[in-house]
């Protein structure tokens, strides 16, 4: 009866047998070369479908080149329960690391976004369904520690099926541990921005992911505690096509904004600016935009003349 932690609806293109190539759009079946798709931020040029983005690629998309420094990269899961299902947990971990090049489902560190420093905690769904275990929990806390030490905001980008069953109760405790880190941020007055991407479900959405001072999501992302299949199987209720989607969550008051991936970096830069103290100026490669009057190259007198002319024309 417990909500199943890892339950991700397969994209439409997967129905009816036959494996879909990862670079084929599940919505409109357009196919892309790897470099094309990467260049397009993994957004389908035809229909706007947002493909999954790996943690390092996401960091590359969001941060200024060369600015990212990782913390906790040397942490690895061990197998506290000697867990074996159809395969040993240690085998699954090894496979996941070989397939993704990641040590766990989250990469933590700090970088700059349009010149502004920020701590980052970015998840990768490809590593065991982005599941949350001891290493992920510790990495999130390390990112929060960095934010507090250096007085900079924390941005989390989530993609997860939920807690990692192979670590059972220790995985569940990561919910308390990560929320504790959010409490720490709040006590220190550190802004925390949560970016939810497809899918963010189970123990991750029910802990740190839901607690951003600002919560934004990518279009079409499934964001729910229990996935649609679990809801249907346990309660017998039917779920609609937009069940748990980012757009529904926005309508129901669970989110601040749904932001397309192309606009994500600039939206985050704007939020970092808004959360920064009044006198601080960005230190990086981008100077702040000049005031509109300067941009137009007009002095106050000319602006008044223009205004009068405009009014005269209308009157």
């Amino acid at each position: 009866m417990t909500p199943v932690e890892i339950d991700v609806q397969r994209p439409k293109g997967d129905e009816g047998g036959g494996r879909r190539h990862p670079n084929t759009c599940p919505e409109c079946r357009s196919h892309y070369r790897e470099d094309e798709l990467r260049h397009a931020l993994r957004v389908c040029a035809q229909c706007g479908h947002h493909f999954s983005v790996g943690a390092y690629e996401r960091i590359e998309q969001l941060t200024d080149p060369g600015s990212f420094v990782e913390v906790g990269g040397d942490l690895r899961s061990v197998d506290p329960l000697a867990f074996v299902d159809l395969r040993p947990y240690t085998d699954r971990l090894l496979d996941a690391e070989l397939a993704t090049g990641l040590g766990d489902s989250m990469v933590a560190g700090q970088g700059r976004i349009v010149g502004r420093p920020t701590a980052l905690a970015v998840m990768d769904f490809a590593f065991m369904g982005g599941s949350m275990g001891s290493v992920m929990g510790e990495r999130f806390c390390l990112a929060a520690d960095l934010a507090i030490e250096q007085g900079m905001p924390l941005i989390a980008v989530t993609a997860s099926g939920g807690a990692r069953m192979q670590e059972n109760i220790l995985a569940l405790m990561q919910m308390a541990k990560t929320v504790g880190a959010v409490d720490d941020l709040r006590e220190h007055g550190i802004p925390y921005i949560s970016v939810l991407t497809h899918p963010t479900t189970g123990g991750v959405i029910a802990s740190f992911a839901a607690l951003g001072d600002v919560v934004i999501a990518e279009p079409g992302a499934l964001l729910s505690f229990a996935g649609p299949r679990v809801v249907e199987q346990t309660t017998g209720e039917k779920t609609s096509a937009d069940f748990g989607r980012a757009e529904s969550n926005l309508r129901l008051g669970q989110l601040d904004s749904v932001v397309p991936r192309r606009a994500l970096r600039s939206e985050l830069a704007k939020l970092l600016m808004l959360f920064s103290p009044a006198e601080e100026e960005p230190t990086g490669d981008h100077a702040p935009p000049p005031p509109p009057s300067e941009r137009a190259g007009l002095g106050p007198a000319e602006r008044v003349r223009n205004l009068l002319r405009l009014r005269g024309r209308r009157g």
Partner: protein
Amino acid sequence: MVRVTDEVRRLRRRFQERAEESHIWEAVQLARHADRPYTLDYAERLFSDAFELRGDRAFNDDEALITLLARYHGQTVVAIGHQKGRDLSERTRRMFGMPHPEGYRKAIRAVDLAQRFGYPILTFVDTPGAYPGVNAEERGQAGMIARSILAFCQATVPVVATIIGEGGSGGALAIAVGDKVLMQENSIYSVISPEGCAAILWKDSGQAKKAAYAFRPTARACLDLGVIDRIVEEPHGGAHTDPAAAATFLDEALRQALSDAEQIPAAERRAARRAKFRQMGVWGVVDDGSTEAV
């Protein structure tokens, strides 16, 4: 000769595994026993006076989670617990102890009240999990669980949580972040139900017994992993065989835990509770290609 010895050793090990598998499954069944004492049964025996605080002041009153203002050994406390039902109509009314977001909102309200008056909080955890329905999702189940965990993190009053039956997933943890966490001997605490785990990893919910063996939801395992502070004894055969005796054991453990929790200065309690949960987890550090547990 050697081969026979190996065979015997293997059989012995298999025999031990089978015994442990049965033992773990027995705890799962006892934790779910229809006659097991629930939160209100303990409240009746532990508290001299109690007043039920109902409603979340926003939407409705979720009867799967109850909150009480109560007198415990001469001191006013706030009690928060999941509540299952005894007969079919009560079970339906109480949704088998599976709260909607309103339930957690009510819990947050109770934590806030305790905080304002400095009353200690006692929680009683007994749920298969938060209710996984369309309405619950639409009203923000995930966010409310997260906010409930946060409310418990932020409380500066003493908090003692006890798992008295099923500690199922985030729906249980939402009210289980305490300075001291206790577990009754035959209760279980896990990230997912054994059936749910089996359905996903074994692709067959009928393998629940195997799943339970693999992920060990028992009080013993939780104590060994540093997740709980103490196992609370139950009468022989389980709490349901003698609820009065079970309540006496629980009373003794709660008094002790509460007095321990009260030792922590209020100003340090929030950071101390955070630190307690921060150290939960097991991981290694890669060093020259090998992983060493820390």
